[in-house]
């Protein structure tokens, strides 16, 4: 069972015992070419350990409005189908729906995408990947939950292996209901998202950074082998 913790509230559940760190992440002693022995700590040496930063709007309102307009009109979706809802994403590229008309395009790498559509239920295993991908996107970035499963678990509400409420793990900007929502619904959702962004309310990335500890605690409750520094840069 998931325990629900509000932002800022202390986690009431007992801490689970830490799993042992994976072998490849444990500190290891290696011999340098000149014969010295040094210790390599992969978690420290290979990953950036900095926490995420809050990037508040920095410019005059008129400039920010322009930027927000641009952000809204140029939604680059991360091409990552997380659940069965992904099947509803594809028709958006077809002549019938042609989401490109609305400035919606797909990017294969999170670095270049700014909209993450969580398409349907998220198994814990996929959640881990989804979080990593989300963290690797650049601020500002938006999350859309697609279908009932992301809202309340949907038909998997009692599953041992899926999460029930997406917004406990990622800062969701918009949910699109339905099981499955049709592509038209998606389009409507995206247009709604544009409004949110244009209104300057699409600050999920900053929310995530501000409440990072809370999100991370929630995430670690279900993901027991995060195996990385907290923030995946």
């Amino acid at each position: 069972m998931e325990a629900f913790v509000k932002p800022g509230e202390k986690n009431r559940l007992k801490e689970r015992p830490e799993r042992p760190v994976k072998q490849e992440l444990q500190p290891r002693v290696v011999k340098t070419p000149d014969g010295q022995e040094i210790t390599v700590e992969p978690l420290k040496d290979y990953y950036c350990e900095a926490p995420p930063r809050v990037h508040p709007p920095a410019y005059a309102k008129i400039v920010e409005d322009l930027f927000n307009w641009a952000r809204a009109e140029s939604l680059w979706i991360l091409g990552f189908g997380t659940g069965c809802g992904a099947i509803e994403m594809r028709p958006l590229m077809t002549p019938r729906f042609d989401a490109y008309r609305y400035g919606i395009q797909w990017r294969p790498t999170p670095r270049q995408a700014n909209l993450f559509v969580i398409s349907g239920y998220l198994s814990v295993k996929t959640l881990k990947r989804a979080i990593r991908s989300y963290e690797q996107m650049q601020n500002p970035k938006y999350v859309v939950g697609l279908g009932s499963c992301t809202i309340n678990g949907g038909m998997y509400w009692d599953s041992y292996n899926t999460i029930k409420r997406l917004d406990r793990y990622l800062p969701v900007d918009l949910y699109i209901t339905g099981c499955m929502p049709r592509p038209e619904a998606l389009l409507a959702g995206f247009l709604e998202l544009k409004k949110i962004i244009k209104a300057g309310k699409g600050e999920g990335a900053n929310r995530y950074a501000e409440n990072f500890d809370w999100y991370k605690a929630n995430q670690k409750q279900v993901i027991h082998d995060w195996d990385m520094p907290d923030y995946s840069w």
Partner: protein
Amino acid sequence: MTFEWMKIPFALLTLFIVVNYGLLLTALMQKIAARVGGRYGIPIYQNYIDLLKNYALRSAITHGFMFYLGPVFRLTGGVGLLLFVPTIYGSAMFSNMSFAGDLILALYFIFFGSLGMALGAGESGHPYSAIGVSRGLSQVTMAELPLALAVFAIAVQYQTLSITEIVAAQQGGFLHWTLFTNPLAVIAAMLSFLGSMMRPPFDVVLAPQEIPIGPPTEYHSAYLALMQTNRVIFPIAKIVIFMNLFFGGASNWPVFFVKVFAIYMVSVLVGVVFPRFRVEQSIRWFMVWAVPIGIAAILIV
């Protein structure tokens, strides 16, 4: 041809025109490709928005020094290439910086951006970047060969390496274009052109899901914006070379727009029809089809 300070505003003007034209042109090409698929595609101004958005992203990461410099190299390559080639025939001002070097400078400066980009992508430490670079470099060795042969053929034909002089030699009616005076060279060059435009069937470098868009897989925000800027300048700069060498150049901007569009369309038309080649397939394809035509071109001249 020497340097005058007046050239700088004109160079900036050229740049401005080409950037805007490029933004619209690439969007138009995407729309055309979309129409082939029965879609309407992105709005014609979409590239402006994308560019603005990417410049406006708030956060960025860096993998290091070369990673940082990669896009700078890339865009310097594009802008430099544009400025080293005379844009408008007969206009001293729109010949920009072409006093610095001739055709050979242009041909070799093409690699400047690719090199910097490859290095930047390399420093990201991402294996997919490296795989993409490996594919791109492999493909370019054979794709460039027909172009090199064609360029040699027409340089011999016109007995000059100066782009301005080559354009001058093609004036006086479209039948004087290299396209008609030396069709073999032009065919070879245009086949090579297909290989350099990053469009199907020669776009395995960017295989979007297999190696998420290859070399620039780690680039984002302003880096990506710089590279996008280059993506609109660079193809046009390249096309300008082709236009000057093979299609009689352009003596004013409208002609320039039309010819660039037409040449660009060649790669788009081919691209929407054909599926993707693997690297060794495209190398073989160039070896079997394009190179012999190039060889014929240099032998006949």
